[in-house]
């Protein structure tokens, strides 16, 4: 998608009077737009963070920045919820909303608890719009490195810190693998396929089924029982229940591709370490100039390092 279309797609989600604040802002490099109550409106690109003036110009002077009022924040939140906060209760309790185009709005505010369960986030104090970008073809180079000699897929884990590009790679791999295999994506946080009104906002492939917002472990078991995938893709494993689910998937003869938070596998302990050791390959990702890239591919069973660059 070109920059003008991306800008139009994002600004369409804003109430009309907010759109002018972005008149002269280039959307090509933006990663996040931060709205905080009584604080300046801020934009984060891969390289820098800056403010926006009332006239919609980029500035590094905080004094010139547009300050977001609490009322504006509430109006923006209502618009992101399609004027129907009640209809997004579960998403709000999970701390984010998914917009058309797969863009994600992180929510900060006061947590309302009932027992141990979050029932609402009230008094919204901040919204973080993370711009979703699809790098079609970014996983093309890594694909041969995660295939076995018999052309089946090796169980692979992508490792990177937050915003390191794990989901971007998983999404593109789903698209590539679905040309040859039946793929199921268990998308607990609607990040990989970004389903909106039942339609995937990203290209995840023709042979791909998406279990949207399923708890990961439950979704993996459901997929094995009902969708007979050859490859299962899911994001951010780490818990004890994930370990059991991964074992079940592998025992069912299905390949699994997933991701884990971290700079490298050396820091993994406990369940995370045990999950990691079940996999055949690990792909370490790093962002360079805002674009996620493969730093190295590790053959976990042999601990041999293959150049991924």
């Amino acid at each position, binding site marked *: 998608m070109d920059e003008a279309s991306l800008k139009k797609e994002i600004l*369409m989600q*804003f*109430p*009309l*009077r907010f759109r002018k604040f972005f008149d002269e802002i280039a959307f090509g490099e933006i990663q996040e737009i931060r709205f905080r109550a009584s604080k300046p409106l801020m934009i984060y690109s891969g390289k820098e963070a800056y403010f926006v003036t009332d006239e919609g110009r980029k500035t590094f002077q905080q004094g010139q920045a547009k300050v977001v009022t609490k009322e504006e924040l*509430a*109006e923006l939140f*209502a*618009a992101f*919820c*399609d*004027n*129907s*906060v*009640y*209809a997004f*209760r579960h998403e709000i309790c999970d701390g984010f909303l998914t917009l058309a185009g797969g863009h994600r709005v992180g929510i900060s505010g006061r947590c309302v608890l009932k027992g141990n369960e979050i*029932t*609402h986030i009230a008094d919204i104090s901040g919204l973080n719009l993370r711009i979703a970008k699809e790098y079609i073809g970014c996983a093309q180079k890594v694909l041969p490195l995660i295939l076995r000699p018999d052309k089946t897929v090796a169980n692979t884990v992508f490792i990177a810190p937050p915003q390191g590009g794990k989901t971007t790679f998983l999404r593109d791999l789903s698209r590539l693998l679905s040309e040859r295999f039946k793929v199921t994506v268990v998308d607990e946080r609607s990040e990989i396929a970004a389903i909106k009104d039942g339609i995937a906002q990203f290209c995840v492939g023709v042979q791909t089924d998406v279990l949207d917002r399923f708890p990961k472990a439950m979704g993996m078991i459901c997929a094995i029982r009902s969708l007979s995938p050859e490859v299962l893709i899911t994001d951010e494993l780490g818990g004890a229940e994930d370990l059991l689910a991964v074992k079940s998937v592998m025992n069912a003869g299905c390949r699994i591709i997933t991701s884990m938070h971290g700079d490298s596998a050396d820091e993994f302990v406990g369940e995370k370490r045990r999950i990691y050791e079940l996999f055949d390959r690990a792909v370490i990702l790093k962002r360079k100039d805002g674009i996620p890239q493969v730093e190295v591919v590790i053959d976990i069973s042999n601990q041999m390092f293959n150049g991924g660059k």
Partner: protein
Amino acid sequence: MFTVAGIAMVVFASIGLFMQQISKERKRLSAMGEFHRLLLNLAKRMDFTGETLPMIFHHIAEDEQGEAGRFAGELAMNLSEKGEHSLSVLWQEKVSSFAKRLFFRASTAEILKMVGKTLGTQSEEEEIRTLKHAAAELEEEIKKEKESAAKSEKLLKSGGVLLGLFIVILFL
């Protein structure tokens, strides 16, 4: 002779005004009933379908032919345009214009406007509670309106009888 004609004209004009008043009351009563159903319908759809308000307004506009259906249709259209105003402002503007056209009393318009102040900004339970509360208040207004309409009709009937007697006396 002139006196008799003058009296007859005054009586006829009064009856005409009365008839107009009754027609207004009937229109108001019917529209109030439709808006009462609209509030309950909104609550029901929120509860059972979990759809967003623009979708709910759209469906109600398709299902309802009357004034409430038109009200929902206009809101659905305005919301889809993502214009300058929030739902709260849009709702209150629409209520004002419909209230004027449908001869709603100030108290009725106020009940409907109050709904718009929080609509779409609360949890499901709170939304449903607010809508049901407003519907109950509107029901009270409808009861009062029905009583007032019954009184007016009685008055009209009495006026009709008197006019009949007057005409009979004239002929005698």
